[in-house]
């Protein structure tokens, strides 16, 4: 790495202020939506007593998973000593913190009693994975903040490697914890699987890097700073590997489920009979979210076109949302098997029937607000502190680059 210069962005342009304005407006609208939900109660949302986690959870879990993945780039530079990624490490840490904050905001505001946050922080049931996660999330903030400090203060640079290793291990545990929220639910046919943890880790790699790539492209384009082709290609190829990784775990998950007879019901539901869910699975998750991006990334002609690669990253994000929708909503919509071997012919609580769920506008707005919170944090931070190198041109970042 040559002399990489980090510099705040100027942040006085019309475009920048417009960006802040738009994000701020989205956040205000989201808070309004939250107020409506809070004031009236959750009957205004799409949730009910069968589908208890709705759209806010999809946004929140997406952001939390992506937060852990956004740290990848920093981890690769510190833990695996890849110098080419070093200039990106600060931005990667920043994005990780911002995405997690956005995700947690949604989660908290979607609680039935958000006013009792203090109870969530002071009463712990240590058998609950949720309770561990509260600790893991808070720890992540602290450890990544320290990591950024080690990287940004010259005299502390020597510690950035051990702290980076700690952050890397922490994030693996964190995503394992997030995946285990589902993996430990014995009652639900769609969730009870140990593979949830590695699947979530693969998802975090993929979603996090896709967001990172888009933020990087936007930030460098809008500030007029150079972003080298070689670096861009590396990131793109890495994202392709991650997308393929998710596909592999999804395949493994469904194949193991198909092997076990007790899971045939949920498999048929998600893959074939479940109406909207198979459509979302095959078209949204598999084609739009996995195959199309892979094609865009690796096809010799489209892989060189930044716009198309950016589109591919966007599709990964959309596909990721759809994947979580299928997993979270589909898993709840599938009826609980309370009477094996029997068929429910009458029930005042819709037993044995596919649960109904339709996202409400309030839920979607709250979710978008969380994303806006993450992005505004990044936009403000890069103006205040030195997160972004002035140049990411290949000759400035890669000592072995020959151009």
């Amino acid at each position, binding site marked *: 790495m040559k002399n990489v210069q980090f510099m705040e962005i100027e942040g006085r342009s019309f475009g920048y202020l417009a960006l802040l304005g738009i994000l701020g407006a989205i956040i205000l609208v989201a808070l309004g939506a939250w107020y409506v939900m809070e004031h009236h109660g959750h009957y205004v949302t799409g949730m*009910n*007593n069968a589908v208890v986690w709705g759209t806010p959870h999809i946004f929140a879990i997406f952001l939390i998973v992506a937060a852990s993945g956004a740290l990848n780039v920093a981890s690769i530079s510190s833990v695996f000593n890849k110098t080419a990624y070093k200039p990106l490490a600060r931005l990667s840490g920043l994005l990780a913190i911002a995405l997690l904050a956005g995700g947690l905001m949604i989660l908290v505001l979607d609680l039935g009693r958000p006013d009792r946050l203090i109870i969530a922080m002071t009463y*712990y049931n240590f058998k609950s994975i949720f*309770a561990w996660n509260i600790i893991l999330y808070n720890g992540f903030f602290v450890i990544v903040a320290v990591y950024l400090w080690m990287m940004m203060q010259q005299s502390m640079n020597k510690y950035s490697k051990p702290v980076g290793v700690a952050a890397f291990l922490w994030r693996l545990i964190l995503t394992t914890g997030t995946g285990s929220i589902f993996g*430990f*639910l014995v009652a639900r046919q769609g969730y009870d699987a140990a593979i949830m943890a590695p699947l979530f880790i693969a998802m975090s790699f993929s979603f996090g890097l896709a967001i990172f790539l888009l933020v990087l492209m936007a930030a460098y384009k809008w500030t007029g700073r150079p972003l080298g082709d070689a670096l861009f290609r590396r990131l793109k190829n890495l994202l392709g590997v991650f997308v393929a990784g998710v596909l592999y775990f999804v395949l493994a998950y469904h194949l193991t489920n198909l092997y076990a007879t007790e899971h045939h019901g949920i498999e048929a539901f998600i893959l074939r009979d479940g109406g909207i869910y198979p459509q979302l699975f095959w078209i949204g998750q598999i084609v739009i979210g996995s195959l199309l991006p892979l094609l865009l990334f690796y096809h010799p002609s489209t892989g060189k076109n930044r716009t198309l690669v950016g589109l591919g990253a966007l599709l990964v994000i959309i596909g990721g949302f759809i994947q979580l929708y299928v997993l979270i909503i589909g898993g709840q919509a599938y009826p609980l098997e309370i009477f094996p071997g029997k068929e429910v012919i009458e029930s005042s609580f819709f037993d044995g029937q596919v649960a109904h769920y339709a996202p409400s506008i309030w839920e979607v707005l709250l979710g978008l607000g969380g994303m806006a919170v993450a992005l505004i944090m990044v936009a403000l931070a890069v103006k205040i502190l030195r997160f972004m190198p002035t140049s990411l041109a290949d000759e400035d970042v890669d000592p072995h680059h020959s151009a």
Partner: protein
Amino acid sequence: MTDKTYNADLSRRHFFGKAAAAAGMAVAPGVFLRQVHARPADQAATSEQRWGILIDTDKCAKGCDSCVTACMDENGWGRADASEDKSGPHQKAQWIRKVTIKDKQTGHVQSLPLMCQHCENPPCVDVCPTGASMKRADGIVLVDKHICIGCRYCMMACPYKARSFVHEDLEDQKVVAPRGKGTVESCTMCVHRVDENGTPACVEACNADNHNAMYFGDLKDPNSEISRQLKQYGGKELRADLGLNTGVRYRGL
């Protein structure tokens, strides 16, 4: 720290109402001896009892929902709570419900009530981040409405869809069963009655209707009616494969 524990205790005590009454209330001589240890009003529930309900599906009448109505009236949910009118049918509380099932192989049709099974190893309690979901020493599983943050993780974890989330503001709560917007609730086995040596409202209503399909009692007392019935005729757990050792058992399934 002490402060917190104190508050928790206080709210729990407040919530669970008064404790067991006089020893003389006992019905059988065997029970009488045990009841000598009945707890004074300010003592916590003990593990000397494990309360349970046995449901005889052969006696449970199709189309009858006396137990459901009685539970609504006793605890103030469903049609007994007119203020809960904005929630849709999928959103309304369901502490107990009637289900009719048909055996896929034989075509045999049965009707039965389904409510919180008061698991000995309750997944809802395991996953609850704050400890609001909890099991009393005597096996009754409850939600402390003062600690519940409304995360609904317990609802995800319960294999029987036994829990409800309160979707809106409520009025005129029953003193014995406080409910609250944004928190989760479920069958309490009429803990306020049990603590006064009473019987859950559903069981009482079933007997009053002469269906006698429900037995309530102490599973740890070999002389209780429920224990004798279970010993003689057996009783199944729903989803026994999950190993939850439920306090509610079904005969004839």
